[in-house]
């Protein structure tokens, strides 16, 4: 007996699992919002989702009064792979009206409409709840349109609890704003990471998906520093000139995989030996497994951890180099490197820094970092002046690292205020560093930037409101004699 029971159970199981799974999409209008359902590619003509519990739940879909013109509700696109039933409930809101009818159409991608159901409301049964089940035998991509019609009286059509025999396949990004959308087409995704090959910067690498450049488009920006802080500068902004490009590589989960930075060393009009660092504000060093590509002198004053990041910092710090003059040699004559046109030009040097957050899918010990947690505003660049680790010079209003020496603040011309977040500015809010996203031809030695760029002062005095393109090479914008 037990054996027969087992055999029957097995046979039933086989029959059950050999049936194709029937997908069903349900619309009960419980979002309570016509706009939301329009966003989900449902469309409504003279119909709205209203707060009424007369069919089920709290909401149903209601037409306006049926007085001679049709009102309809159209579903989003459904991919029907197996024959099934379209089920729904309907009734009218009241008893008035000389005639009332509900028709349901099946609409194909070609636009063809097939009438699949008709219900003529009989007098005396207008408000009787009707539960319908309509066999759908055609497979493919379809919409269903519920069309109410009638004349006379004030009763409205009510519709709720629609079950559709298929899966949604609409493209909400093709929405015309009132629920009319296209259907989804399959996309190529070679690495199967969810990002279409056409959008994927790494179409065959499941661990990487996107390049996010700062500045935009992969251009190089320029950082131009004055290194005499906290003493007032000579404002030639060439004591350290570095071009930079940051590329935050993310995966399809929008986690940072790596930060690839390119630094082009261009000029140093300084007599001081200066280094360059970048802090990732808000990012713990434990979130990065490796920092590589930096250049530190033997016997350096920088203390690095095993990851290559600087040790003893709350936020991740990578010291790109500790002494510019160890990388680009002074040409032997003139002041500085590449700031005096009478001295030989020293070819630029480039450093490629890689910070690894996720290595072949393995996240660093401190966990992953989301794209929104490390925006470009987290890149906090600074000079370390005179090989004195505590003498950091940051872009204006960027906080110092844990290793700064607070004794320099509010000495000489510095007017930093830790409480208000004012950093590295004078009393008049003049800076020791500027950031030009578009790149920058810097002034010659001792030439003030305002003499080289003729609208610089207007830009500054207006706090950026005027001449936001002051760095351009437009007529009347530059004095080329002052520019290196």
């Amino acid at each position, binding site marked *: 007996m037990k054996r027969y029971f087992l055999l029957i159970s097995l046979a039933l199981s086989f029959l059950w699992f050999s049936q194709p799974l029937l997908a069903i999409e349900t619309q009960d209008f419980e979002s309570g919002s016509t706009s*939301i359902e329009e966003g989900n590619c449902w469309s409504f003509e003279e119909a709205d989702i209203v707060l009424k519990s007369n069919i089920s739940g709290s909401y149903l879909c209601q037409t306006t009064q049926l007085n001679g013109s049709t009102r309809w509700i159209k579903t989003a696109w459904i991919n029907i792979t197996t024959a099934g039933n379209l089920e729904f409930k309907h009734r009218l809101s009241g008893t008035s009206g000389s005639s009332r009818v509900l028709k349901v159409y099946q609409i194909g991608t070609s636009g063809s409409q097939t009438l699949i159901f008709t219900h003529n409301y009989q007098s005396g049964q207008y408000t009787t709840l009707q539960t319908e089940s309509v066999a759908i035998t055609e497979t493919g991509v379809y919409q269903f349109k519920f069309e109410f019609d009638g004349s006379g009286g004030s009763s409205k059509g009510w519709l709720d609890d629609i079950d559709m025999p298929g899966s949604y396949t609409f493209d909400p990004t093709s929405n015309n704003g009132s629920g009319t959308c296209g259907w989804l087409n399959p996309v190529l995704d070679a690495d199967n990471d969810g990002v279409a090959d056409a959008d994927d*910067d790494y179409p065959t690498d499941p661990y990487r998906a996107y390049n996010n450049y700062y500045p935009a488009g992969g251009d190089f920006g320029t950082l131009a520093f004055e290194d005499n802080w906290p003493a007032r500068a000579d404002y030639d902004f060439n004591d350290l000139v570095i071009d930079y490009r940051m590329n935050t590589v*993310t995966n399809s989960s929008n986690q940072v995989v790596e930060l690839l930075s390119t630094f082009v060393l261009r000029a140093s009009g300084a007599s001081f030996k200066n280094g360059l660092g970048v802090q990732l504000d808000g990012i713990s060093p434990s979130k990065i497994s490796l920092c590589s590509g930096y250049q530190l002198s033997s016997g350096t004053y920088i203390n690095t951890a095993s990851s290559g990041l600087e040790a003893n910092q709350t936020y991740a710090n990578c010291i790109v180099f500790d002494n510019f003059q160890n990388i680009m040699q002074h040409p032997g004559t003139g002041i500085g490197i590449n700031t005096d046109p009478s001295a030989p030009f020293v070819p630029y040097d480039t450093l490629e820094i890689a910070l690894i957050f996720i290595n072949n899918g393995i996240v660093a010990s401190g966990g992953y970092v989301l794209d929104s947690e490390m925006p470009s505003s987290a890149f906090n660049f600074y000079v370390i002046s005179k090989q004195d680790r505590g003498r950091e010079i940051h872009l204006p209003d960027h906080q110092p690292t844990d290793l700064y020496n607070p004794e320099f603040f509010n000495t000489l011309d510095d007017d930093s205020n830790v409480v208000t977040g004012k950093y590295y500015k004078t009393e008049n809010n003049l800076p020791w560093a500027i950031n030009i996203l578009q790149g920058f031809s810097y002034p010659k030695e001792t030439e003030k930037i305002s003499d080289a760029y003729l609208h610089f002062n207007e830009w500054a005095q207006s706090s950026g409101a005027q001449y936001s393109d002051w760095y351009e090479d437009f007529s009347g914008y530059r004095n080329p004699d002052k520019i290196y």
Partner: protein
Amino acid sequence: MNQIKLLLLLAVMIGLAACQKDELVMPIPQDIENVSTSEEFSWSTGDIVTFRLEGLPSKVAYASTLTLTTPDGKILFKRLHSIQEDFSIELTVPSIHQNLEMTYGKMKKSLLIVNAVAEYSFIPGGNK
């Protein structure tokens, strides 16, 4: 008589114009050392702009690449974004631009930057 009226009218108009408050024009210092700026000025040719996205409540998991570019076509940011998800990020946008361009699947929108914020809602009617 008409000439007198005309002269009177002219005199009144000149008088009114003279009473208009002169715009306060701050002289631009020749020397950068005399420049004074607001404490908020960043000394960067880019502005920090907050991009905000309101997701669409949906039973369907639809995701596509969200791309933000400058009006001249330079890509600022990309991510795989679920249409259901609210999202916010700070971007550094060159100060010369007043708009962000958003692409999401087949959707293309130009978003005006107002008070350092650019925003969009996937809910129809949710955009100002």
